[in-house]
């Protein structure tokens, strides 16, 4: 069985004010082409299809276009789960149409793709759901000798996770740590894996040890939602993960686990990543063969620092440096940039997202002052006199100041609560 793994499309996401939709459309077409060329049997999309829970119509249209192209009228199985950016209900709204084409959309950790009860629903498709339950399904693609059992874990927020566990009415489970809860769900579901099936996991999670980028929305505020990679099911051929934008295999995982990463660079911190989708060839009883297929769609992101001022930046533009890229430009200067300079920079390079002057000598780091506050008040006053009057303070005046200082503290409190 041949499987394609991708995730974190973030359809509708923009870079500052610039829309990335054209690049995203380019990626979708590229992905459909790859699916055809590679003759994939199954496509797994591991969450964060959209960038916001309230995506634009154009973004949704692009998503449906992608499903249409990937599913290829039911010849290929497609499983999509919701990520932390997605609105689970909204993502699955198209399910009635999707099912007829062998496409499974899942919103919540406990979602059951087969619960609708229509046997004939896959009538148009050569893809069949053989069995299913909360959080798992067994899928058969025509022309493929083995069915696949897939454990699905759409983004399990704390409350969604609790809901899954509450359904099983086991109070003790709710008390456990997030990672343990996820592990228990996996342990329970992995009993569905069989010797004669291809066993897969698709999930949207943050695994400990995963490397983050700037464009992800952090999931581990206070470390709460971090999952121990050892909790993945041992028997799985492959775990297709979503959330991190850098393509990477997770070390220390109980089964081969891979973040496919986002298809486009969404922040300047990802300028150096090569984006990819993964191809997995799996057969029952054999280790899966995992191959990254590198992508070359969309415009790259570049960070320029013009140490020698505006002239250097202008020269780079004129030389056509990174002409196809989106550029974050920092100019080291000792004066304010004029409007004219900014205009000409943008005219020379259409991909400049932002121009930021850095005043030379400004390290940007502030030192914590302790010099004055720590000293004795009479010394300070002497210094202040010098600063103010330009001469030494007469001893008589200093005596008077000390006399003021030695004045008894008045009882505090008479000046507060005057409302």
């Amino acid at each position: 069985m041949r499987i394609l793994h991708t995730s974190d499309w973030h359809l509708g996401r923009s870079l500052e004010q610039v829309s990335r939709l054209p690049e995203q459309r380019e990626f979708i077409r590229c992905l459909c082409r790859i699916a055809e060329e590679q003759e994939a049997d199954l496509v797994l999309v591991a969450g964060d299809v959209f960038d916001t829970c309230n995506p634009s119509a154009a973004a949704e249209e692009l998503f449906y276009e992608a499903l249409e192209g990937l599913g290829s009228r039911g010849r290929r199985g497609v499983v999509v789960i919701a990520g932390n950016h997605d609105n689970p209900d909204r993502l699955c709204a198209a399910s009635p149409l999707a099912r007829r084409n062998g496409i499974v959309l899942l919103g919540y950790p406990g979602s059951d793709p087969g619960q609708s009860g229509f046997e004939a629903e896959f009538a148009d498709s050569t893809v069949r759901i053989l069995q299913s339950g909360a959080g798992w399904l067994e899928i058969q693609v025509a022309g493929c000798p083995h069915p696949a059992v897939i454990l699905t874990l759409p983004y399990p927020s704390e409350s969604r996770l609790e809901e899954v566990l509450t359904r099983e009415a086991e109070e003790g489970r709710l008390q456990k740590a997030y990672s343990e809860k996820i592990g228990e769900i996996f342990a329970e579901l992995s009993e569905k894996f069989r010797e004669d099936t291809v066993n897969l996991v698709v999930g949207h999670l943050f695994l400990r040890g995963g490397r983050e980028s700037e464009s992800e929305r952090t999931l581990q505020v206070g470390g709460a939602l971090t999952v121990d990679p050892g909790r993945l099911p041992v028997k799985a051929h492959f775990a297709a993960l979503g959330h991190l934008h850098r393509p990477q295999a997770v070390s220390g995982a109980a089964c081969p686990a891979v973040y496919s990463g986002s298809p486009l660079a969404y922040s300047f911190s990802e300028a150096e990543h090569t984006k990819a989708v993964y191809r997995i060839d799996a057969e029952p009883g054999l280790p899966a063969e995992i191959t990254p297929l590198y992508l070359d769609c969309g415009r790259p992101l570049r960070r320029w620092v013009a140490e020698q001022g505006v002239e250097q930046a202008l020269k780079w533009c004129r030389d056509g440096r990174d002409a196809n890229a989106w550029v974050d430009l920092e100019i080291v200067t000792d004066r304010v940039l004029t409007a004219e300079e900014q205009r000409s920079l943008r005219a020379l390079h259409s991909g400049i997202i932002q121009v930021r002057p850095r005043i030379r000598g400004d390290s940007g780091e502030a030192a914590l002052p302790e010099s004055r506050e720590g000293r004795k008040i009479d010394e300070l006053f002497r210094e202040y006199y010098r600063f103010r009057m330009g001469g030494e303070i007469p001893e008589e005046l200093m005596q008077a100041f000390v006399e003021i200082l030695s004045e008894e503290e008045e009882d505090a409190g008479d000046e507060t609560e005057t409302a």
Partner: protein
Amino acid sequence: MRPKLLEIEGLQSFRELQRIDFETLGETGLFGIFGPTGSGKSTVLDAITFALYGKVKRAGGTLGILNANEDTLKVRFVFEILREGSRKAYRIDRTYQRKKGSDHACEPKIARLIEISAGGEIPVCDKPSEVGNTVRELLGLSHDDFTRAVVLPQGSFQEFLMLGNAERRSMLERIFYLEEYGRRLQDKLSRKLGQLKSRLDTLKGELAAYADATDEALSEAGAEWKAAQAEQTRLETELSQLEPRYREAGEVFQLMMEQARAEQALKQHQLKQELFAQQRRKLDLAEKADSLLELIQSTRDLTENQIQLQALLKQGADQLAAAGQKRDKDRNLYEDFRKQAASEQPRLGSLRTRLEEALGVMGGIRGLTEKKEEAATSLEKLRAEYARVHRDIGAATAEAERMEQELETLSRKADTLKVSPEFRAQLQEGLRLEGLFELLAVKKEAADRARQALDILTAGQEELAGKMRDLKAEQERAEADMESRREEQARALKELEGQNALLLSLTLKPGQPCPVCGSDQHPRPAASSGTADVPLRKQEAEAAQQAFKAAEAAFRQAETRCLLAEKEGITLAGRILESTRELALKTREFEAALQKLPEAFQHPELPEAFQHPELPEAFQYPELQGRPGACVADEIKRLAEQDQQLKEVEKQILHHQTAIRDRRLQLDQWKEKRAEVESQGMKVRTELGQHIELLADKARKIKELLEISELPAEDVSDPLAGLPGEEDVQEEIRRTIQKLQNGHDETENRYQAMQEAEKQYGALAAEQSGLQTRLGMVSLNREAQETLLIKRLAEKGFSDAAAAERAILSASEQQALKTQLEDHQKQGMDLHARLEAVQGRLQGRRIGPEEWESLQQQYQNASRERDESMSRSGAAKNRFELLTARHARWTALTADFQQQNHRQGLFDQIQKLLKAELRKDNSFIDFIAEERLRYIAARASETLGVMTRFKYALELDADAGFIIRDNANGGIHRSVTTLSGGETFLTSLALALALSEQIQLKGQSPLEFFFLDEGFGTLDNQLLDNVVDSLERLSSRQRVIGLISHVPELRNRIARRLIVTPPTGRGDGSVVQIEKA
């Protein structure tokens, strides 16, 4: 400070108690409060400031904060403070009540700050103002600071950013504890100045009061005092001269008055003389009567005594007669009783003896009856047991018989199952033979296979030999061809060589070295034989060479093929040899197998090595021939089954035999027991008979004993019937003893009574005779006394005893009379003496009243004048002394005033120095705080940069005011007031975060939470994302950030939410609920 728990009741839109657990809410470091407009989100914030400071900023105090439907509002806030490394928890309770008759106003009822420690709750203070002040001290923040830096309510968000310099400075002062340099220093200075001013004022006032104490005034008062002193001396002299005359005249006048009074009193005394003579007479008479009084009394006593004795004698005679009668009666009674007792006693004694004997016998009966009953019971038991054993014996016998029958059936069955040993042996042999035949077949097949393989190999060898021959012929042909080609080639080459010399000669030039011999002399170049032939020859030579090469290749190929075929032939020969060996081995094995068969079955004509060995068709075991189709193995199996069955049946037989034996044994035991029970029964019955007989004996005995008694005794067949019970007999014995005792006691009593009566009579008789004697003596005495009395009365001049008694006076009366008489006499003598004394002192001197009056007047006047002069002199002295003291004070005050005036000048100078500049009230604090403010601005700038992707930076201008650097516009500076709503929000947020971070670093109680109310509505989605990302990264366990918003995107982004549900129309208040993402 970190909030832990908040409870709200009756505040604004809240009605019933709502509880917010900040521990759960702040778990991830970031939480949001969400709800529709008007649901009471901001009230949560208000409740915190209200709990801490007792006022709500939005309401400007407490007016209108009470829910319209409630009369009480309660807020409880629990928080922790980290101070000097240790955590302390506090709780504030505030309860306010609606002011009577007011719609909006409310007043505090309870306000309490409590420290919650491990040991319990310690109240800190409980007055509204105290609570506010203590909180201010604990947090180091005033209400305004708190709302600016920690809880940022709606609308007051950008306050710190936009604050005037002075206000911002005072806030920094408080937050960073710079008050020592600022407000407190100012306060001290103002206070000092105030003190000085009032001191100067006081001095001025005092000096005004001492305006009269100058030097001139002092000398004037001295002169006045001296004049007054002289006047006083003169008047004192005058008075002393008048004094002797005045004293003598006074004395004379007094004496004359005294003389007149004495003369008057003497006259009064003489008038009372006659009255006192009468009194004296009365006293004399009384004294005489006194001497007779004793005699009269004793005579009267004796008379009375005599009368008494006579009465007593008469009474005693009556009593004596009565005692005599009683004595006689008691004596008769005793005699009667004694006689009666003597006749009754012996009868009762014998009755008692018999009764006691009967009781003994009865005790025996009780034991016997018990034994009899016991025997009867055991007899009954034995009877039942006998019946049971008897029944068991019957049943067991029947069962034993049935088992014996069954045993017989089993034995018969066993006989049928037995098999003869001969048949068994035959079967074993058959099994062995079958194995041998099988082995033989296998061996034969192996030998066949080996032979077939050999055949194939031999055929192959022959074929190969033919092929070899063909190949050899071909090789020879190729060789011949090759040789002919070689010759052809040699020929062609030779021709070409000739042509070569010609070609060379054409290229040679004189003076140049020949490429063949190197000589630069070319004496004999080859002559041309037709230059046109050269290329043709060359072509031919090449063709010949090619043909030769092809022929050579063909030959080599043929040679190789030949060699290969040869090699194959060798291999094949080896394999044939191997196969031949194999066949021989297999054949031997087959023969060995055949040998093992019994001779009868060995084939007469054993095959030769390469012949096909066949077995005769009819190898059959004669024993089995009668059973066509039956297999030996099957038969053996059946036999085994039959054996098994037999074993089973034998086991059953054994079992049955054992069971029958057990039954019989048991039956014998039971029979034995039956006999035993029977004999026991006999024994018990005899015993029972004996008991009954003994009982009858006893009964008879008792009846005999009791027949004489009054108890009923009937003779019936049952020996015990009609016998009285033991209790009855005992009762009878008790009664008899009682009767005996009673008779005895009564006799004794009677005797005692008789004795008593006798004794009484004796005593009375003795008493009577005593009385008679005493009466005689008394009569004699009385007569003697009476004679004496009459004689004495006559002597004293009293007619009889009564007259004497009348004259008697009591001793006190006599004494009073005596004293009166003496006093009167003494008074007369005194008066005479007094008169004489006065006359003696006067010695004839006299003075008239008028003269005395004028002298008196004169003296008084002189005396008054002297007193007046004295007081005048004293006053003058006082005034002078007072003025002397005041003058000294006046001098000191003047000096002090001048000194203080100088100090005021110095303080004024310091105050001016601290103000220094016109617009500022303390530039000293600016001097100190500027560094810190700059640092805060830099920190805020960093955060702002992250949130806006470095579009903006925050800086300080020369006046330490905030200013924005706009990087998106090339880095120009802008005033903070030119920022848009969203930009202002971001900048304020960054500033507030930096500020709270600073408080955390510097403050004595770090702020561990931070609240934002609204402001997010001003941001677009992109910016909102950035801000929330930044907040997520900034928040931590150390600092919890809380947001209040109605922006839905925000709600989806935040993991911990407090959902506030607005009040419904039905009258309930806002409701809160914690939700997780």
